[in-house]
């Protein structure tokens, strides 16, 4: 077979791509080092910023598939809390295995329920997300009354030492393959590009959208394990409190998808990492860490505004709202 006819990337352009991709976090980190060298000049603290972004990264990857097909779902936080409570509960009976299975199985279930509600309601995903969020938050509060919500220390191993890297690398491989080397990944990218055309090409859009919820749930399960193992405890939230869990990861995903020089899966890592560094920069400047969301929000609006208006081919995410004419 004529295999060499396909274009191969040269090593030079490969290096250029890596540099372009890592430009943002490296620059941000430089700012950090300049503001407080004694604190951030060490390699350890560099690694620490990566460590700190792990949980958000895992959540980000779980949302990436949905966002690829324009599904925005803020119920992720509430599902994470609920799955965490169940996982912690099972860890008391069945140990580490109970934690892992409890988190993952319940999270897949909760993701599927959300996907089901989405396909029944036929309203924007963000609304569906809010509706199930109310229910899941409430369930979390009710459940936590009869359950222990702290995890015993011998079950925290997954967030300790090298274990966390192993887990993240395994997740990365899984997500990378799913996104880039499966039929599923190909088809969701097609749907994300143009849903109408994809449907006419014979892709089952409704089924795939549901599957992104299921897959998202599966990945949230692992994010939950990291979240719980990191904190050692899981607290129920109500009154939309769980939404904040999803916010930073979503910012990371959207930032990551805007980075054109690399694959989106890597992009989400770079995005999540960058946002963690922004947080550290703010602390280093002596600003309140609460302001982080303000800066990140404004940052995202600027980046998106720039992206959308640079190439004037603006395509609205929701098909209805197209204001292209000249009123």
């Amino acid at each position: 077979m004529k295999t060499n006819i396909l274009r191969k990337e040269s090593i030079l352009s490969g290096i250029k791509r890596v540099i372009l991709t890592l430009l943002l976090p490296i620059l941000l980190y430089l700012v950090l080092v300049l503001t407080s060298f004694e604190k951030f000049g060490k390699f350890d603290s560099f690694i620490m910023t990566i460590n700190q972004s792990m949980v958000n990264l895992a959540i980000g990857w779980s949302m990436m598939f949905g966002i690829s097909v324009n599904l925005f779902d803020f119920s992720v936080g509430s599902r994470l809390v609920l799955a965490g409570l169940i996982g912690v509960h099972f860890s008391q009976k069945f140990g580490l295995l109970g934690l892992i299975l409890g988190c993952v199985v319940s999270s897949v279930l909760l993701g599927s329920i959300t996907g089901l509600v989405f396909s029944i309601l036929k309203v924007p995903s963000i609304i569906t997300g809010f509706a199930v969020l109310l229910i899941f938050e409430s369930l979390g509060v009710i459940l936590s009354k009869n359950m222990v919500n702290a995890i015993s220390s011998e079950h925290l191993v997954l967030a300790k030492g090298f274990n966390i890297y192993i887990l993240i690398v395994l997740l990365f491989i899984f997500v990378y393959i799913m996104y880039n080397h499966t039929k599923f990944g190909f088809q969701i990218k097609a749907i994300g590009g143009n849903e109408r055309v994809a449907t006419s090409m014979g892709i089952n859009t409704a089924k795939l959208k549901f599957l992104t919820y299921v897959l998202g749930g599966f990945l949230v399960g692992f994010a939950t394990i990291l979240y719980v193992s990191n904190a050692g405890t899981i607290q129920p939230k109500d009154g939309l409190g769980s939404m904040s869990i999803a916010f930073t990861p979503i910012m990371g995903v959207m930032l990551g998808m805007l980075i054109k020089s690399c694959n989106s899966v890597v992009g989400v890592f770079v995005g999540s990492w960058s946002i963690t560094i922004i947080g550290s920069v703010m602390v280093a400047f002596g600003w309140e860490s609460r302001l982080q969301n303000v800066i990140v929000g404004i940052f995202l609006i600027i980046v998106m505004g720039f992206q959308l208006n640079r190439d004037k081919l603006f395509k609205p995410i929701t098909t209805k709202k197209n204001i292209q004419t000249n009123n």
Partner: protein
Amino acid sequence: MMVVNMDIKKGRIQSLFQYNKSKIAPLLGLVLLVVFFAITSKGKLLEASSIENIYNQGFPLLITSLAFVYVMATGNLDFSIGANVGFCATIACYVAFFNTKLAFPAALLTGALVGLINSLMYVFLKIPSFIACLCMMFILTAANQTLTGGGSKMVPVELLQNDYSIVRLVLLLIYIIIIVIIFHKTKVGKQLEALGISVEASIQTGVNAKLLFIVSYVVTGVAAGLAGYLMLLRVGAASPTLGSSLTIDSIIALVLGGMSILGGASSSMICAVTGSLITTVLNSGIVLAGMGGDAQQLIKGALFIIVVSISTLRESSSKNF
């Protein structure tokens, strides 16, 4: 001429039933809900203190959901409205330390400005409206947390010296009259509704789409300012979570009140009134009936899903004919 008038009257009564089913069903629901909770709470729901409580809890929702109709009519949503309420309250609180008279205009102005920025991001930067509003929501929430220092910030005592309940009633009435008239009796409301049905057809019929999108977001912004100020007076302190539930409650109220989330022809102020009453009665009723506050969110969420799926089913079945 007489005949024509008779015709119109007869037709109006007919059409009232034919084309307003989606507005009458929620009213019946409200009545059933009141009856249900009146019985389960053993009459407590209808006591004067409960009714006053419902009024006290319900007015911010009434304010925001009435304004939300403007945005939802065009098929957009304003996710920042709740955070905006809290932010306006905090700004008003700060301003009140300089001058108590300026606190109210400051709240309104802040709200309007936030709404304006939302709409400019959408109309000129072409950022999808829900992303623009979500970013705004997180920016405002974080700003509000920073300003209040994470806890509550008491208002100056002088601000509380006016007779609060009368001020509130007067402002509320003026607000309702203005917002209802603009929506139902001027071209603004009718054009917003038209945009919700078809942006393309509206533009070709001379509707200034960009201007109206801006107007709709400024209206929700002003409403957030008003609600924020009045809540500040009632609570006596600004706090990071003040008003934050109003976004989702407004959406739920409008949907329970019979309005379509996609806006358009079903848009009406009645939806906001019925819907916010249903939501508030539900909130109080659950507590009064001793069902436990934890289930409140659960019941609201479940009810929302049920109502939306019924209307989705109805729409898809009517399309088959």
